[in-house]
């Protein structure tokens, strides 16, 4: 009887160990970014940086003023989504090159590399602590991915940013708002360099 009880306890312990092992969160859950949610127009404090998304515009043609001439960027099969925001870094110089627009179906778009980095808020120079940077983040996406899109701004470069602060911002683009934005997309949009202070 005692031997049977021992075997039973042993089996139960093995079962408990197996269950505990399965309950261990995977690396992505343990080391993923720490998100703070908010919406368009709201000042969001992620604990690592603050961000306020001011407006969202859509265009098929962008104009990029340069030192000597103005350049035009056209997308034939997509649209440019231009998000204007102010970002203030919290405590260390950081980059935000993993900023992305996530469509309703989960498809993720990085900020466009066709747009020069000096007019992109989250590309180029590092954000210095305490100095507000106001600028644009530009995405090139298919028009049918616009409705329901969410902006995700996370501190760190591609491949880094473990346990990094991340802002998840609802842009308030429902189906009717998406239609309105797309109707106005034929008007070219001029990009402006990032402002400081």
């Amino acid at each position, binding site marked *: 009887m005692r031997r049977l009880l021992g075997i039973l306890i042993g089996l139960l312990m093995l079962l408990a160990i197996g269950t505990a092992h399965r309950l261990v969160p*995977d*690396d*992505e859950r343990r*080391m993923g970014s720490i998100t703070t949610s908010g919406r368009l127009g709201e000042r969001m404090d992620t604990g690592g940086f603050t961000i306020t998304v001011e407006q969202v515009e859509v265009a098929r043609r962008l104009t990029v003023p340069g030192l000597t001439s103005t350049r035009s*960027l056209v*997308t034939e*099969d*997509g649209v440019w989504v231009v998000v204007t925001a102010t970002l203030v870094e919290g405590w260390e110089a950081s980059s935000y090159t993993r900023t*992305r627009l996530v469509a309703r*179906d*989960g*498809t*993720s*778009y*990085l900020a*466009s*590399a*066709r747009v020069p980095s000096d007019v992109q808020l989250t590309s180029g120079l590092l954000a210095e602590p305490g100095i507000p940077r106001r600028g644009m983040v530009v995405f*090139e*996406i*298919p028009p*049918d*991915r616009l409705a329901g899109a969410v902006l995700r701004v996370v501190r760190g470069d*591609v*491949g880094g940013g*473990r346990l990094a602060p991340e802002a998840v911002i609802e842009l308030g683009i429902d189906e009717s708002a998406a239609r309105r934005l797309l109707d106005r997309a034929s008007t070219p949009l001029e990009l402006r360099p990032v402002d400081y202070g």
Partner: protein
Amino acid sequence: MPPPAPRTLQPGRPAEAPDAARRRLSVLLVVIGLFDLALIVGALAWSGGLRTAPAEKAPLVRLGEGLDTGRFVLTPRRAWTTSRDPLNDSEFADTGRFLTLEMDVRVTADESVDSPRDLQRGLILRLPGGVTIDGTSPRTSELRHGVVLAIDHSPAQVHPGLPRRVLAVYRLPSRQSWPHRVEVTGMRWEYAPGFLVRSRAWQVADTAVGRVVLPVRRGEP
């Protein structure tokens, strides 16, 4: 203080003899070990064991058909060679032998392909004369010159739902003559944990998904 007791002496041998003998033995063992290692490495090299394993022979697809890598579909279109760096249109462009591979890219994963280098990492190019440019080999990183969008020569970032034509540029090694054909093999990509880092990322697998042979013309079309 009394003088230290003398160490045991052997006739004709200094006092440090046992230490010296041990040292000599250690040196001898190290030499024998290195000799054995060199012998093994030499035998491995002689038998071909140090050469990169040949990639699995992939099915040959017709020119114009896509290679579905699991992350994006690549459709090689044309190839040509130039004697100036096609990625630099200034007068300071490097000269040499450059091979440009024009491809259409359609992303099938649910995220942008941010790094243009990824479009070359999953490709193996075989040229007449035996030169192979394996995208995953660090030794070919200097030969993989870059990938740009054909439309404006900006870095070839490709997004889901927005297929793009790209130009993948290779710098051919000096031993390679002007090629008249190139075989392009596409390797499978998988989203999997790394060897050291457990978080998942896109990596090139060992499996070839297909290969296509293109004629190479001299000069930009």
